[in-house]
């Protein structure tokens, strides 16, 4: 049942550069994430998004790489920092921005909010805002896929800080002993909220150094390199789909902004921020594509298309009404009601 044998490392080593079409799609996907999140930021500033919200600016390569590798019917589970992971599955941008703004057109009609994006029809099985909670739920979806022999894989995204909560370990052990088709992706962005992860973690690589505790192969990659993320995702998805069980993948990345709306991120050393800004996954990938001979015009076209899409989504969401108060108490139960008495 255990697998510390380097299956994923071997597959990555053998992976070839994606074809141009795929690379353009990866680029488009990252740009869509980038521009949508930037727009979300602007909408906060205009107080059109209330409450809180957690942007994944700077972490686009992870969502884009996995999104491109996943089968349409695979499942994804993400956190409150889950706008990108939701978008890359094909969910409407209007639905996402509308939900952030609490409008009728929102993905959940305003009942969920920024931290809880979900779209069952796209296999987006939810965004969860309690640290670690979605990890065993993802195992459950994988268990169900295994039971139904559907060939689906569940992919579960979470942060470095999540590796210190109990549910992380329970889930990995559980997935390992049942050989579940689930891929756990730890996005190590160096911080759990405002606290450097190194200050509260007994090992250097919070996920990778814990893989062996559950019989898993340690996998640690540059999460700002979308080609590498894509190759790694393919390897882990293939492994899961062929019955070889779960993977735990730590990707190293960085968020460009603060933890959430309220946070200017001032606790981060200037040099650290500067170093990571140089590794911006969108900017560096654009350069890589140019270096590979792709012409700037194609990339500019993508940028323009994405920008137009974001504008359109914002406009639609802005023009959408607040949700009808009739839905405030519906859909607690399968019958659509919330009635607890006769």
């Amino acid at each position, binding site marked *: 049942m255990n697998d510390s044998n380097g299956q994923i490392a071997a597959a990555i080593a053998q992976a070839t550069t994606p074809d141009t079409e795929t690379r353009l799609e990866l680029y488009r996907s990252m740009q869509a994430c980038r521009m949508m999140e930037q727009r979300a930021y602007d909408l906060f500033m205009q107080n059109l998004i209330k409450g809180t919200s957690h942007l994944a600016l700077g972490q686009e390569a992870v969502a884009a790489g996995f999104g491109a590798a996943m089968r349409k019917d695979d499942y994804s589970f993400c956190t409150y920092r889950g706008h990108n992971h939701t978008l890359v599955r094909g969910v409407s941008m209007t639905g996402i921005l509308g939900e952030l703004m609490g409008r009728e057109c929102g993905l959940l009609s305003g*009942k969920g909010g920024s931290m809880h994006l*979900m779209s069952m029809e796209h296999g987006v099985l939810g965004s969860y805002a309690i640290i670690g909670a979605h990890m*065993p*739920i993802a195992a459950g979806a994988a268990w*169900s896929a295994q039971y139904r022999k559907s060939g689906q894989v569940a992919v579960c995204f979470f942060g470095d800080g999540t590796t210190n909560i109990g549910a992380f370990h329970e889930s990995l052990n559980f997935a390992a002993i049942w050989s579940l088709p689930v891929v756990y992706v730890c996005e190590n962005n160096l911080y759990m909220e405002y606290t450097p992860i190194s200050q509260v973690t007994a090992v250097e690589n919070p996920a990778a150094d814990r893989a062996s505790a559950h019989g898993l192969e340690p996998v640690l990659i540059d999460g700002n390199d979308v080609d590498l993320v894509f190759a790694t995702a393919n390897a882990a998805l293939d492994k899961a789909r062929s019955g070889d069980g779960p993977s735990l993948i730590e990707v190293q990345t960085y968020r460009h902004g603060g933890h959430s709306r309220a946070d200017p991120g001032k606790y981060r050393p200037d040099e650290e921020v500067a170093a990571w800004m140089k590794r911006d996954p969108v900017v560096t990938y654009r350069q890589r594509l140019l270096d590979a001979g792709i012409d700037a015009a194609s990339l500019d076209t993508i940028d323009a298309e994405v920008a137009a899409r974001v504008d359109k989504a914002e406009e639609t969401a802005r023009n959408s009404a607040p949700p009808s108060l009739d839905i405030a108490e519906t859909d607690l*139960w399968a019958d659509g009601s919330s009635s*607890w008495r*006769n």
Partner: protein
Amino acid sequence: MAQLSYREAVSAAIAQEMRRDDNVVFIGEDIAAAGGVFKTTEGLLDEFGPIRVRDTPISEQAILGATMGAAMTGLRPIAEIMFSDFFAVCWDIVVNQIAKTRFMSDGQCTFPLVIRSANGGGARFGAQHSQSIENWAMAVPGLKVVAPSSAADVKGLLAAAIRDPDPVLFFEQKSLYGTKGDVPEGEHVVPLGKANVLREGSDVTIVALAAMVPRAMKAADTLQQEHGISATVIDVRSLVPLDTTTIFESVSKTGRLVTVEENPRLCGWGAEISSLVAEELFWDLEGPIVRVTTPHCPLPSADALEDAVMPSAERIVANVLKLAD
């Protein structure tokens, strides 16, 4: 009619539903090979095999998380949490995830799952293995809450819980496992949300749940025989959905209500029913509403002490008499 123990009715219900629906699967600690620490699940592994009936590690969050994930993707899982006190180690999955996700998702997904657990005192297991937590569950929107008092209801209500499209917490009272009763032959399903009027009287309505039901019945006998007081006894059976219709009908008739609950004093289901009646049926009341509960304390372990704190038939009688004064 077959004579089954409350314990045997558990596996009878699960087997009935597993035969009927391949999507019903069952996981928990020691539920498969060992047949359960209370022997409630014997025979299931043999009949349904290790893919459908599966032992887990001691990882309650993983057990219930997996149950949730399976339920939202097409299965109808049943999970066992061995003792209800252990819900505290996986409470997040129950209250923040299972209970809220359908609502938050604007109805995109359903959670047809059941979590069974041995609940309550009387077995001298001490404070961490004896608590009654049906009131914890009732306080959380999005959970259905069932607690049977007889073997027939164990079978029928558990079957209904498994078929129900919503999450059901199913509390088996551990000191009732050895009790026996008639259970209808063949398929047996008792709808959730219907209270059971076990005895009709005219002077007072006694509302009870699980292990308190036989005690309330005994109290009603004593009241009748020794004091000429005629009591209705209602087994609530399910706290959510709550059959206020049946309870209100009886209270309107008798004008007096006594609730008998095993959970600790504060914020129990008795308080909920009492305050419902105080709000909606106030003008029908002929006297105060009395709650009989375990005091607001953990349960002590020694038999003498445990017996002293849990509501007894005698204490029920005394409280009704106080009311009749």
